[in-house]
């Protein structure tokens, strides 16, 4: 069964460093997303990406964040200068065409900023 894969599973970084979280969405999907879940809180939307551009972003997704689909398979989330409060589980998701199809999530990357 096709699945969304994320690497690494756990990333520890020092405050102020740049991190890149990587995702390989399901191959024929057209819509790509990043969500995050701070420990004990709800899953929050960060950004949606379609047709090689951001289609929507949340207030959380400020200038420190960027997304890229550098080739036909990878989808990355970059945090330019990490802060302690960026520590969270980051989930990538992808969705097929169609207005109301379900999103499939990766297993997540646990980002710890120290």
């Amino acid at each position, binding site marked *: 069964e096709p699945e*969304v894969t*994320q690497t690494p599973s756990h990333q520890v970084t020092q405050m102020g460093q740049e991190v890149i979280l990587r995702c390989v969405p399901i191959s024929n999907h057209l*819509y790509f*997303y990043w*969500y995050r879940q701070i420990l004990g*809180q*709800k*899953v*929050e*939307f960060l950004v*949606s990406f*379609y047709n090689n551009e951001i*289609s*929507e972003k949340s207030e959380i997704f400020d200038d420190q964040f960027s997304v890229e689909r550098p080739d036909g398979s990878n989808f990355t989330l970059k945090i330019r200068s990490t802060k302690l409060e960026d520590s969270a589980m980051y*989930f990538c*998701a992808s*969705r097929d065409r169609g*207005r*109301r199809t*379900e*999103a*499939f*999530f*990766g*297993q*997540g990357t646990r980002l710890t900023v120290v």
Partner: protein
Amino acid sequence: DQQVKQNSPSLSVQEGRISILNCDYTNSMFDYFLWYKKYPAEGPTFLISISSIKDKNEDGRFTVFLNKSAKHLSLHIVPSQPGDSAVYFCAAYGSSNTGKLIFGQGTTLQVKP
């Protein structure tokens, strides 16, 4: 901005009995709802969905009911099994058509053998 709310943080049921997980929403523009299950250290897994043109959708042991007038939906699991123990998230597609999901806080279900 809690547009999707799950007011019960946890639920414990006996194996074989029914589990009922509840969810409320505030935005009447929401027209599609989904339930996801999440195990520790894994991503959310899609369970079942319902469109606002329906009031019930069934898939095996899982049934979702939608009451639009009350802005309330519920997930019924019958019979409950120990493997169902997980965190269950209710979610709605936002009104922007980008496919953005708005999640509730989650309910931790424990099914006791």
